[in-house]
Every structure is written in C-alpha cells, then in structure tokens.
C-alpha cells in the first residue's frame, strides 16, 4: 500500500525552483544603459534598447542584464509599501484568499530583492510586508486544507491562490487525500481501484 502511494510522488512533485522558473517569464520594465537593436527571440521580439529609455523584458533577461550592470530595474507597480500594506490588511480582514497583484508575487519579490535591491526603494520593508502577506495566506491555506479533509469534500474552489502557494501544500494534501481514498475504497469489497500489490 505504502509503496503504491509513494510511487506517485515523483510525478506530482514540482520543485519550487521550477515555479520560480515560470515566474521568470513575467515581464518587468528596465532602463538600459546600452543600445542594441531589436532582438527576435523565439518567444517574441524585444527592444530596441536605448540608454535611459524604459523597455519591457522578461524577468530572466532583466536579472541577467542587471548582474552584468547593464540596466536598472523598475520595480512593478505593486511592489510599493503603501499598496502592499493595503493588500496585507485586506488579506488579514478577509477569510477567503484576497486577489493578489501578481500570480508570482512571492517569487518576483524574492528574485528582484535578491538581485536588484538597490533599485527598489524600501526593500527591507517590502520584504517584510510580502512575507506577512505570504504567512497570512499560507495559514489560511492550511486551515482550508484541514477542513477540506475533515469534511471529506470532493471539490474545492481555490481562486486567487498562486502556484507557489499551492506548491507548499501539494504533496502533503494530495498524498493525504489519496491515502484516505484508498483506505475508504478498500473497506468496500469489489472496488477495483486498489488491486494488484496492495493485497
């Protein structure tokens, strides 16, 4: 039995670094200090780049240029102390998950603050605020996962939940649900769901 359940893990698992990888496709505005013609990437055209003129690029490129000291990163609109305070307060007030400004808010905050904190005003406050928002949301997620299991629900709506948040609970929640399902279906004779090695 245990073997069966464990063997499913590898597929369902997503590494946090892979979620971060996805977040790097989001666009961010940079102010380059070099000039370069338009680049025709497979995923779309970028540029042209002119010194001092803002241009939108994917995060992976922005971070690379930043590391090579070729640009300044303009933080996204929502990465602002006042806005984040509002979001945090709303998140604490509401019982459900409040809408979030970016589906990758956690990953982007981490990436941008780690690599470009000199371009982001009040970086430390932002870090704390985003961590507060994250903690509040993950606590809600744990509560709802708990009630989902104890009420033995078969469907849950998870609007506004981000991929990284889902990822924190994915393995534990899905494995628990699968375990409980197997325990239940094994009690009913004749259910074909768990034949083979389980016996």
């Amino acid at each position: 039995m245990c073997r069966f359940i464990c063997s499913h893990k590898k597929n369902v698992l997503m590494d946090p670094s892979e979620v971060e990888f996805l977040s790097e496709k989001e666009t961010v505005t940079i102010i380059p200090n070099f000039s370069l013609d338009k680049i025709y990437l497979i995923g779309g055209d970028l540029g042209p780049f002119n010194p001092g003129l803002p241009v939108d690029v994917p995060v992976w490129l922005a971070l690379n240029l930043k590391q090579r000291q070729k640009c300044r990163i303009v933080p996204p609109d929502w990465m602002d102390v006042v806005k984040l305070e509002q979001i945090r307060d709303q998140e604490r007030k509401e019982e459900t998950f409040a809408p979030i400004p970016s589906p990758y808010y956690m990953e982007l905050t981490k990436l941008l603050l780690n690599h470009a904190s000199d371009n982001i005003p009040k970086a430390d406050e932002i870090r704390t605020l985003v961590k507060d928002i994250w903690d509040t949301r993950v606590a809600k997620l744990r509560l709802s996962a708990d009630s989902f299991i104890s009420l033995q629900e078969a469907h849950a709506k998870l609007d506004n939940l981000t991929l990284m948040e889902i990822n924190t609970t994915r393995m534990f929640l899905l494995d628990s649900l699968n375990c409980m399902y197997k325990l239940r279906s094994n009690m009913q004779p004749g259910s074909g769901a768990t034949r083979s090695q389980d016996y």
Partner: protein
Amino acid sequence: MSDALSEASDLSADDSQDVMTPAELIAKLEEAWLNEKFSPELLENKSEIVECVMEQLTHMEENLQRVRKGDVKASIHRMEIDRIRFVLSSYLRSRLQKVEKYFPHILEKEKSRADGDPSFLSPEEFAFAKEYLANTETYLKAVALRHMPPNLQTVDMLKAVPEPCLDSFVFLRVKERQENILVEPETDEQREYVVDLEEGSQHLMRYRTIAPLVVSGAVQLI
C-alpha cells in the same frame, strides 16, 4: 473517454493547419509540460509540438554558429534556448518516468488501440516501453523466477505493476467555461452534485472527473 480523445485529436489536427507563432508554440509546450507533470496518467503525446520546438531550436542554434563570440545578442538568444530546452527535456523526462512506472498498462492500452486512433506514445517512447518491458522480464527471470518451482515461474506484469491512480486529486485552472461537471461524493452519506467551472477559476478535484477536459485543453493542471 475514447470519444473525447478522438475529438481532441481532431482539434489538434485543426490547430496545426493554422499558422502558430513560435511564441504560441512555446506556450503550448509549457502547457503540455505542466499537464504531463501533474496528471497521474500518461497523456497523449504531443510529438507535433516537440518536433516544431526542436526545429526552432536547431534553426536558432545554426544561426548562432555564424555569430562571433561575445556578442550580446547571441548570449541572450543562448539563454532563451537553454530555457526552452529545459522545459522540453523536463517534459520528455516526465513522460519517460511514467512509461517506466506504468509500462505494462501503457503497452496494453497501446495494443487495444483501434487502427487510426492516434497513439499515446511517440515511436521512440513505444520502442522504449517495449524494451523496458523485455528487460524487466529478463531481469526478473535471471534473478528470481528461474529458481522458483516450475508453477511459479511466470509473473503477470499487468498485475505486478500498479495502475495509474485516476482518482488522485489535481489542481487545475479553467481556460474555457464548463457547465455541470459532476462531483462524485466522497462518502456514502454525501450526495453527488454538479459544479460550473468558470473561466479563470481554480479548483481542486479528482482527476477522473476532468480528464477529458485536460485532453481537450479546456482546463490546465497546475
């Protein structure tokens, strides 16, 4: 199920006639990657997408060979190629992992497939699965079975290897609105009920319920 599958393959055939931009192609690859990663069973192979992406990558790499070293643009192109290659490898790898895990069932499904229906496996994956089955059987025979009493010298792989568990829960995001999706009850005291899946909403439910929607592309596993 088989109806839904053949419909979906018709759809994808239609798609390929439309001109897809490379950016859309990459987006399709990423969708396929996440779906394959999170679905408990092996999904239909997307060899068309894989081939097109490979073509794009090879083409771009050929162009880059002509560029001198240290060119800024070339380094950006290389980074993009690496990122796409990562997704592509991860996609193919997660398929092979499933083949290794469920090979007897996948081969059985392949055998019972009607002529004309699209195969779940690419030709390479099919060869891999057959070889994996043969090697596993040879190995079991050499290590254990030949030392057994004669009546215990065979092993039925279909029974020995667990089936994919389609009743697993999955997380999903809705891309096209769906009405009246039946949710089966968890316990005897509960009743079944229907839900509407609004576009853009996210859900946690059993894979079996929404498997046809994954195939048709109406929902994305997350």
